[in-house]
């Protein structure tokens, strides 16, 4: 297991996703400030009607994008700080939500929509948060790669009801149950998932009740 390479690759993917999205945020702010300049220039000749409305619309868009940028940088900052402690008490569902908020673009590019199913009884476990996030990300990648849908696909993430575990489920697979298991265990990411889980004291299993992967906290 090339742990260092896997960590670097994971950090690379997360930061690339966030910075790409930040570029879009900045591009929208830049275009809207440019549009405001255009309006003001035209207005110097007195040709522009409803300038207040036009400028107001640009300001509203800039404000919205500034908030989007704050969310992205806060998310990235929170992610980076999950490396501060090798083991800590973590609300599993919250941590997954934060990870998805900064990485969903990666999966959206592949037409995959990720939903997190709220739990009635969310719980915390003492784990290495970075390892858990790497495992979660790999589980999603493994499912996306294993099932490669032609159109849009969906992955649900939910806490298990009867044990300390989280499940990553691929919705609406057209594969037979026997075939899907083969697909997952022959995917290159599966080996990484099981290896990381062994190091972090988690256990990875093929979901017994659906097309997915179950991560059990031991």
């Amino acid at each position, binding site marked *: 297991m090339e742990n260092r390479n896997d960590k670097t690759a994971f950090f690379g993917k997360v930061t690339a996703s966030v910075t790409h999205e930040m*570029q*879009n945020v900045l*591009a929208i702010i*830049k*275009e809207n400030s*440019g549009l405001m300049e255009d309006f003001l220039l*035209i207005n110097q000749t007195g040709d522009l009607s409803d300038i207040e409305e036009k400028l107001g619309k640009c300001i509203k*868009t800039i404000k919205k994008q500034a908030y989007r940028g704050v969310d992205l940088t806060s998310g990235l900052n929170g992610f980076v700080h999950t490396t501060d402690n090798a083991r800590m008490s973590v609300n599993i569902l919250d941590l997954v939500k934060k990870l998805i908020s900064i990485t969903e673009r990666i999966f*959206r590019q592949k037409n995959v929509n990720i939903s997190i199913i709220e739990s009635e009884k969310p719980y915390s476990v003492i784990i290495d948060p970075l390892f858990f996030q790497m495992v979660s990300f790999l589980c999603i990648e493994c499912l996306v790669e294993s099932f490669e849908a032609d159109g849009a696909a969906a992955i649900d993430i939910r806490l298990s009801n009867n044990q300390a575990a989280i499940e990553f489920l691929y919705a609406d697979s057209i594969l037979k149950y026997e075939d899907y298991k083969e697909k997952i265990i022959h995917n290159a990411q599966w080996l990484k998932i099981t290896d990381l889980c062994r190091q972090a004291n988690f256990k990875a299993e093929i979901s017994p009740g659906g097309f997915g992967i179950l991560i059990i906290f031991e």
Partner: protein
Amino acid sequence: MDNINILLIDDESEFVETLAERLELRGYVSKTAGDGESGIGMLANESFDVAILDLMMPGLNGLETLKQIKAIDKTLPVILLTGHGSTRDGMEGMRIGAFDFLMKPLDIDELIGKIKLALNKQSKG
């Protein structure tokens, strides 16, 4: 300026709509599409002089969209938009047949310059 029709394809709606408005203030006629599939659909039904295409889009990505655009209209100049650090994709796009590529955030004057160059080249070609 004669009506120059520009097709803008980008999944960031607020970016593409603002850019369209800025191009229109400069005398261009712009239409927008929020993904590759819609852009290709518009291209099949309408005539455009230039297409501006974002490389990072969900579903049909920029390079795949470019290939399909070139299959419909080989001569249509396509200017690609890419993020910093993705110049490799921009170069790959040019290999497939894009006229040029620009980095986001854009400079409107630079974009207009590229559009004019693309139109000049096409009129001579």
